[in-house]
């Protein structure tokens, strides 16, 4: 199974109140609390998706990262909905929202928080937005296991289960957060990078 068959055609990082795409900063605001930072970025990019406001912070972070990742870098009509999937991982699962939901159970348990008490919901939000219907997987890992994710995604692509895959790390716990997403495709487009563990590690180390 040759990893060189697949390419990172776009990548996006959100951390420390900075959003970067393909290594270039596209948004930065240092003073806001994390939830306000997310809303500020949403407004700056002029996204129109009212459901964004209802999402928990994990889904907001993942949704924002995916929008920026795909913007001007992905053509939906290139693939059938079943050919695009998502593979994500994080360390804190949905704990950020679990704690908030637990607080509401002392009074009136919030249905809108309850629906976000699973980490994979963020993938659902991205799929609903983009009408992706390919295979999804969400792994809870202490640290981003680059080897595992790279092999898992290559397996999906090389076995034609998927033709394109969004993969990466989306993690939130209160004010601590980190998002890194990679768009991995089979085509070797301009400025694309082979989807190797070395290149993934290299991108991670720069963000």
């Amino acid at each position: 199974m040759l990893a060189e068959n697949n390419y990172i055609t776009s990548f996006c990082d959100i951390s420390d109140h900075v959003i970067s795409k393909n290594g270039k900063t596209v948004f930065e605001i240092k003073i806001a609390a994390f939830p306000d930072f997310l809303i500020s970025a949403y407004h700056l990019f002029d996204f129109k998706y009212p459901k964004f406001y209802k999402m928990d912070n994990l889904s907001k972070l993942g949704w924002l990262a995916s929008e920026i990742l795909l913007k001007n870098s992905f053509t939906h009509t290139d693939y059938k909905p079943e050919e695009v999937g998502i593979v994500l991982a994080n360390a804190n699962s949905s704990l950020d929202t679990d704690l908030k939901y637990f607080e509401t159970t002392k009074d009136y348990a919030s249905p809108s928080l309850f629906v976000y008490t699973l980490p994979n919901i963020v993938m659902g939000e991205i799929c609903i937005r983009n009408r992706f219907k390919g295979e999804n997987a969400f792994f809870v890992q202490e640290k981003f296991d680059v080897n595992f994710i790279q092999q898992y995604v290559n397996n999906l692509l090389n076995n034609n289960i998927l033709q394109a895959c969004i993969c990466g790390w989306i993690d939130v716990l209160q004010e601590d957060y980190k998002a890194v997403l990679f768009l991995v495709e089979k085509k070797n487009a301009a400025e694309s990078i082979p989807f190797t563990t070395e290149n993934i590690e290299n991108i991670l180390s720069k963000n």
Partner: protein
Amino acid sequence: MDTLLTDLKKQIVEQLNLQDIKPEDIGDDQPLFVEGLGLDSIDALELIVLLQQHYKIKLANAEDGPKVFHSVKTMADYIRANQPTNA
């Protein structure tokens, strides 16, 4: 101006996190679901919580939901008909 209708609109916007909508933009008879405000099934559950939280009213029969939550006005009518006297 009916204060119950005004209060309900504010509570709906707050409870459902409708940040792109102002309370005054919601019509008294405007459908809350589908073609109106576009609320979904989770929003319906939040409206049930809203009734309990703010008006101490439990929806007695789930089948009444579509009628009760059709619009702000139908919600207000239900509250007036069912609100405990000491609430």
